[in-house]
């Protein structure tokens, strides 16, 4: 119930509710208060324009149109609600019928609804209005029945969604009749969307009724509703425009009141996700240090979330030409964001900053390096099933980068595509190039994605969990392929993975990330036995091997990683660390490089020798 009331707290909902209450109050009160003024004939004041005496002018008999519009509220709203009632009752019955009667008869009902729902309501209403005869009664029936198919369709969908649920099945198993089940268990559970839609369609019925009356098929004189007043007023729009505009405005306001209130209800009942506010753009520091021969040089990279929390907190790393660097860590450690930030693929509202972000000696933060990144940096993403555009052929998706940056002709680009597809061992590349992504298997798509990166002459491949979505045998092929490409063309690799085994098999060096920071940087060969950070050691220990005792439960790291929003002042791993003391909780350890090129951020690192012994 509080959800329903929350409608009133949104500005749109409150406005709509206020309007609706106003319209309904007018419908009740206006005929009681102003019938006399609305019906008073004054032959001295025929077809007058707007004046202080007659706010909306007068009609052919000199009757005051402002009061007539007010008084017409009751008939207009009444007829619309009546029509909506018919639509809801007939629609509910038609929609619930398939669940009540047998499947054979039910199919015919569904087919009937499917055919009728394809026609616009107005067309159905016109057809029915002819059958039921011109007049208010015929129009109510016509608009009501014309609205029924849409309601029936909605009910069918909702009933089908509920009827499979356990409590309905349980009620039916208990021998409760179908009708009772529908009444007691199904209808209460679909009431919310039905009420919301009924509110919206009451607005629709109001507008439709105005339309029919305007055409002369609805309310007949001497009765009058807004549509009738509008139809009468339109003829004289040059002389007394208010006669047409006043009822028109009334229809729009009342229709909007129902519509908006319904929409606001729908929002309140459903779920809405408030988007975070965007941060002001911060000036970027530029840094002109001496160029290095590293392919990639990153210093103090941070990624800030819209909440102000930092998901990546000062990551520094370097990759030498041809070197393979792995980044491991649990989900949420910021490893993928780091990769995307380096590739300049992080968009607002996230903010990326770095003291230094150089790729092949070019400062990626200073200018746009579209061409450099387009030809020298290759990306491989996690899910090959979604990483290709489903509406375009493989060939054109591979070719477009090369055509844009390399200035290749259509033929040259096509030849290159086929050559590259062959290079990533896709059979029959001529035929495959013409196909769409959905005609490729997952492994083939990932190979095609790698092939896309090889369209240029990459110096670095950033692979973000490239094998996670693939099955194990295909994983091996993809890793093998990456290794071969590296060996052949001296390409550096930044491999993001949560899989310690994959990283240690493929990479030269491993960065271990935890809560947005690098906590250890060590040679891949040392990972299994020479890790010094307690977190790295815990990660390695959590990997089951052939020797693991299958009787014992799998090793896990107790506790969970803190969210970016609540990182502590001290070491983020301290709450989960067996070696942690007061110092760890109070002060964050810096990432310190040692003489052998390794880096570690820990107050209590295992000594290199001890690490070996323990393992």
């Amino acid at each position, binding site marked *: 119930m509080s959800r329903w009331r929350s409608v009133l707290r949104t500005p749109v909902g409150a406005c709509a509710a206020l309007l609706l209450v106003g319209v309904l109050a007018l419908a009740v009160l206006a005929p009681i208060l102003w019938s006399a003024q609305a019906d008073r004939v004054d032959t001295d004041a025929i077809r007058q324009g707007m004046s202080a005496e007659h706010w909306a002018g007068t009609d052919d008999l000199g009757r005051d149109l402002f009061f007539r519009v007010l008084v017409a509220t009751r008939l207009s709203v009444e007829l619309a609600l009546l029509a909506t009632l018919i639509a809801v009752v007939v629609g509910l019955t038609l929609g619930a019928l398939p669940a009540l009667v047998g499947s054979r008869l039910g199919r015919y009902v569904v087919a009937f609804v499917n*055919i009728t729902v*394809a*026609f*616009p*309501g*107005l*067309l159905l209403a*016109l*057809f029915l209005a*002819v*059958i*039921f*005869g*011109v007049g208010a009664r015929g129009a109510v029936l016509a608009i009501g029945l014309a609205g029924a198919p849409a309601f029936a369709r909605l009910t069918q969908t909702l009933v089908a969604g509920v009827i499979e649920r356990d409590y309905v099945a349980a009620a039916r198993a208990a021998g409760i009749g179908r009708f009772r089940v529908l009444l007691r268990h199904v209808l209460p559970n679909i009431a919310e969307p039905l009420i919301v839609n009924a509110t919206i369609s009451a607005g629709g019925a109001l*507008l*439709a009724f105005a*339309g029919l009356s*305007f*055409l*002369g*098929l609805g309310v007949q004189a001497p009765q009058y509703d807004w549509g009738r007043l*509008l139809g009468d007023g*339109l003829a004289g*729009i040059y002389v007394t*425009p208010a006669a*047409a*505009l006043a009822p*028109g405005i009334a229809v*729009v306001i009342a*229709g*909007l009141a129902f519509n*908006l209130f319904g*929409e606001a209800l729908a929002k309140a009942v459903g779920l809405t996700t408030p*988007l*975070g*506010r*965007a941060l002001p753009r911060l000036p970027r520091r530029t840094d002109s240090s001496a160029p290095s021969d590293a392919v990639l040089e990153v210093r103090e990279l941070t990624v800030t979330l*819209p909440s102000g929390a930092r998901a990546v907190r000062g990551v520094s790393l370097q990759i030498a030409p041809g070197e393979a660097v792995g980044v491991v860590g649990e989900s949420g450690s910021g490893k993928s964001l780091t990769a995307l930030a380096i*590739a300049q693929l992080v*968009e607002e*509202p996230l903010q990326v900053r770095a003291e230094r972000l150089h790729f092949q000696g070019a400062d990626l933060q200073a200018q746009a390096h*579209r061409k450099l*990144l*387009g030809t020298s940096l290759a*990306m491989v*993403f996690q*899910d090959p099933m*979604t*990483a*290709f*555009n*489903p*509406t*375009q052929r493989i060939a054109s*998706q591979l070719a*477009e*980068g090369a055509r*844009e940056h390399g200035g290749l002709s259509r033929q040259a680009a096509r030849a290159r595509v086929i050559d590259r597809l062959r290079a990533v061992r896709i059979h029959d590349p001529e035929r495959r190039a013409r196909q*769409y992504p959905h005609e490729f298997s997952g492994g083939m798509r990932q190979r095609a994605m790698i092939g*896309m990166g090889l369209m240029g002459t990459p110096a670095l491949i950033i692979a973000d969990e490239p094998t996670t979505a693939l099955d194990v045998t295909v994983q091996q092929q993809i890793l093998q392929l990456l290794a071969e490409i590296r060996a052949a063309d001296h390409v550096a690799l930044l491999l993001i993975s949560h899989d310690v085994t994959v990283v240690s098999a493929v990479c030269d060096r491993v960065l271990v990330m935890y809560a947005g920071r690098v906590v250890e940087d060590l040679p891949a060969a040392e990972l299994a036995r020479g890790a010094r950070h307690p977190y790295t050691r815990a990660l390695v220990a959590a990997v089951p091997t052939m020797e693991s005792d299958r009787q014992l439960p799998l090793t896990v790291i107790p506790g969970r990683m803190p969210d970016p929003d609540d990182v502590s002042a001290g070491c983020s791993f301290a709450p989960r660390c067996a070696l942690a003391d007061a110092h760890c909780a109070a002060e964050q350890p810096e990432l310190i490089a040692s003489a052998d090129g390794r880096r570690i951020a820990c107050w209590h690192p295992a000594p290199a020798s001890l690490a070996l012994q323990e393992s």
Partner: protein
Amino acid sequence: MATAVTAPRVLENAWVRFAARRLGRLVVSVWVVITAAFLMIHLVPGDPVRAVLGPTATAEVVAAKRAALGLDDPMWSQYLHYLQGVLTGDFGTGLASSLPVSQVISQRLPTTAMLAVLAFLVAVAIAIPVGVFMGVLTRGGRARRAELSFTATSVVLAAVPEFLLAVGLVYVFGVSLGWLPVAGRSGASSYVLPVLALAIGPAAVLSRIVRVQLQSVLQADYVRTARAKRLRAVTVYLKHALPNTLTATLTLGGLLLSVLVAGTVLVENVFAWPGLGTTMISSILARDYPVVQAIVLVYGVGVLLVNLAVDIALALLDPRSTIRES
């Protein structure tokens, strides 16, 4: 023997199966519409002939007219006769005008079709650029204020029915400014207001759909892939995001198109447009049922053909062909 071998192979083609299934559905729906139109004249209250001839006509005149229209024949014979007539383009003769109904239709249909097609094109021509522009502007929760005012404007515009918009347009551009003609069909300028009245509502709804769809497409992995190729932003939006936006838009927008066809009835009556809609209403009021019957049929079949066209367009646009296979 040869046919026995080729038939299954032909049916293996997804396109052929799609066409066969869709055509089957169309035939059934058209049959339903024809039958409904036939039944209409028998469902109307009272004697339609007496209604049109008036209370002063003698019983002999009424009986003669009934016989001429075949209304005294057995039901099934009338039905077969009607089916035969419809299939050969013969809709009988009007009660009021005694002109062949087919002649009325062939005169009025083109002007209505022109109005609907123009309005649809205008709606699309407005909705796609506006929707894409707003989608790009407000991507990832940017420009909240622009998003709010856009949503508010489009909600209001979409909620105002076309005939009220028409009245408003008549008042502003016809009465107050005097720029454009407000009634009848006389030259290109007379098209402006009816087309706008029909197009604005669908344009508002469509542009909202385009914006929302574009937003969700921009989140897709393949858009990130396209950005990773360092294509120009324009290329990413127009080549990668837009086509995928359009398939989703078309599914929902197709419904709008058939609503637009129905909307011509009201808008034509505001502008005294010499089309099917005005003829339909004047015939209903004059109880000229054969004409009403034929126009209902034309509108019904028109809507069915529009739905078919939308389905075919969807099947062509989406190579995954979910429509073709489902």
